[in-house]
């Protein structure tokens, strides 16, 4: 009922620290087919994966940049490290994680989060997972939770069946790039009928300047199973731009449920260009919960392909665009089967010249009889320098469907401020409360620790926004 106090936050960028770990292996800056081969060889990958990478590399070279959205012309592909390995074995227990990395993780609260709430944890450090811990019950239940590199080695058939199927390399330039040079990421398989009792969490983190991160996450929730996966991202501050181009594929089989929660707080020099896609079969439910606070540029439109009758897809997102941030986010719901439903709720806040645009796509295919979609975009623009656009795109190929769309852009209301101040609350605190209230429908969906952290991050970003 009562929120914890959130006053103990310093003014400097909270996660802007770096440690001094030297990578064990790096391919240096820039990208060639040879480097792709090197990456694959370093991982001792099967032939099919090397072929996949090389094909993707060719596609990447040919594909144009996106024809829409933020300016990407400052991205310098020549000076990105496409692969770094900071330790040569995956750590099973916390004791095996190098001390310096451990300190970094501890500052991020990983062990605590694990103790209190989480069933298992795998934390990504630079390009590969170094720490990985799975509870014994997971093994008993047949749940597979590991980094994707290990999954390629240990479960080649399962990985091969699903890898790159929802998001083929040709989908877009950054998906192709990821397919060529991917490293790390999370692999989860939940067997038929198994309901994972607690959220599974993974912490992602970019550590070295110029180090691209190309995680590859693949999730399969088998029939009637359920999974709640939480991914949190924080990154230190750098002077050079960093690229983050993840690919996430989520397969939700008939009658299964999956929620995928992300909080991203990349430092504001990161280009976050992600491709996330889920496929929901008969009566399956896929829920994206997606919060974006940092980055220089974010382009991210998680989608759900509603391919089975009665499938459900939802997207609940917030974007906070501060100074020098261009956030171009949204969702895509593709209704390909009868009686499918989707809901997109997008909340954005922009201040200090930030840009927070919503770009959405809802498609009702020919077979989508009796389907329904709801789209709701709410924006608060904090000052004159900031801007927000809502760019919805709908395509309807079936006459028997219905759709709602609401969009609202507002400023912090004078009446609300006056009311809160008349109770003795300062203008700054009142503004914060109104903003927190605005994002509350999002934060209340998060595990407690994330909700607290998100509130802290927003509070930090709001600091000094008034007078």
């Amino acid at each position, binding site marked *: 009922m009562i929120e914890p106090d959130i006053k103990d936050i310093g003014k400097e960028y909270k996660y802007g620290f770096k440690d001094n770990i030297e990578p064990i292996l790096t391919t240096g800056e820039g990208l060639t087919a040879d480097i792709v081969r090197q990456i694959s060889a370093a991982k001792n990958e099967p032939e099919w994966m090397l072929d996949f990478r090389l094909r993707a590399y060719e596609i990447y070279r040919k594909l144009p940049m996106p024809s829409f959205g933020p300016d990407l012309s400052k991205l310098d592909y020549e000076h990105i490290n496409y692969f770094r390995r900071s330790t040569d074995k995956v750590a099973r227990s916390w004791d095996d994680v190098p001390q310096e990395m451990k300190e970094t993780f501890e500052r991020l609260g990983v062990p605590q989060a694990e103790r209190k709430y989480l069933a298992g944890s795998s934390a990504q450090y630079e390009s590969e997972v170094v720490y990985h811990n799975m509870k014994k019950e997971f093994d008993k239940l047949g749940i597979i939770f590991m980094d994707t590199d290990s999954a390629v080695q240990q479960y080649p058939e399962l990985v091969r069946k699903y890898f790159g199927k929802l998001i083929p390399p040709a989908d877009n330039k950054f998906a192709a790039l990821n397919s060529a040079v991917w490293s790390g990421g999370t692999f989860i398989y939940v067997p038929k009928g198994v309901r994972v009792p607690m959220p599974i969490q993974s912490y992602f983190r970019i550590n070295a300047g110029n180090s691209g991160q190309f995680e590859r996450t693949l999730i399969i929730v088998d029939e009637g199973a359920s999974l709640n996966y939480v991914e949190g991202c924080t990154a230190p501050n750098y002077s050079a731009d960093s690229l983050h181009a993840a690919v996430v594929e989520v397969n939700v089989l008939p009658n299964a449920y999956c929620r995928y929660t992300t909080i991203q707080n990349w430092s504001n020099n990161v280009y976050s260009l992600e491709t996330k896609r889920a496929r929901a079969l008969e009566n399956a439910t896929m829920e994206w919960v997606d919060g974006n606070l940092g980055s220089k540029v974010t382009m991210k439109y998680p989608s759900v392909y509603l391919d089975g009758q009665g499938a459900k897809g939802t997207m609940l997102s917030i974007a906070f665009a501060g100074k020098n941030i261009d956030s171009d986010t949204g969702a895509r719901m593709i209704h390909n089967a009868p009686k499918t439903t989707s809901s997109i709720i997008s909340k954005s806040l922009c201040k200090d010249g930030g840009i927070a645009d919503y770009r959405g796509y809802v498609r009702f295919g020919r077979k989508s009889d009796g389907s329904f979609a709801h789209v709701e975009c709410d924006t608060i623009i904090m000052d004159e320098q900031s801007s927000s656009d809502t760019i919805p795109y709908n395509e309807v190929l079936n006459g028997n469907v219905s759709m709602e769309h609401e969009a609202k852009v507002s400023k912090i209301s004078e009446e609300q401020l*006056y009311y809160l101040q008349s109770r003795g609350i300062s203008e700054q605190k009142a503004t914060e409360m109104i903003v927190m209230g605005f994002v509350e429908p999002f934060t209340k969906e998060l595990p407690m620790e994330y909700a607290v952290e998100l509130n802290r991050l927003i509070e930090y970003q709001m600091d000094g926004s008034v007078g």
Partner: protein
Amino acid sequence: MAVLEIKDLHVAVAGKEILQGVNLTLRTGEIHAIMGPNGTGKSTLSEAIMGNPKYEVTQGEILLDGQDLLQMAVDERARAGLFLAMQYPAEIPGVTNVNFIRDAVNARREKPMPIREFLQEFDQALATLDMTEKMADRYLNQGFSGGEKKRNEILQMMMIKPKFAILDEIDSGLDIDALKVVARGVNQMRTPAFGALIITHYQRLLNYIVPDYVHVMMGGRIVQHGGPELAQKLEAEGYAGLRDELGLDIKLVDEN
């Protein structure tokens, strides 16, 4: 004892002068009522005291224990000891009632009130006002009925414990049961450390919260002072009667 002094107060709204020289002194331990017809400036007086930016003070002074309130921001006035129960409280989505009230209580304390102590007091106040615990976790005023909003204003007042509360038409839209409940809350506050200014059209509320002083306001001024019996007289004779008796040249808003 604290003193709230209003001296020769002139207030304009959107360039139009509504208050034309109001003088009033309140002390803690006293309950004052201001009665008057519609459109006579009662709410303007309460908003101007609180510091609503839409109300421009063009002349006069408001002093709280000698401190110049007009030089203070709204939140500073509140922390100095003022409270306004509003006619139209704002709705704040996503902010739970209990968290908001706790922030308000803590805004005037050096150290936050221990949660246990806060909740104890909070539960007692809820009980006094016949409010359910559900009201705690609802979003502030969002979707509240008219009566719920009024009770919630009184709930805040009881938790914040101001030196002076202004209750702006706290009785409007309340049925007789709700009126009694609200009155119970206010009467519980009645101590030598608390003063109130009750603004109302009707005498009815004053049956339940018996004031020490009654003032009648018409045409942007206070035109008559008295005790509780003045309210009774108004109930019997109406505002037009009093106006004519005083020989005032004021047109009442609702007169044709």
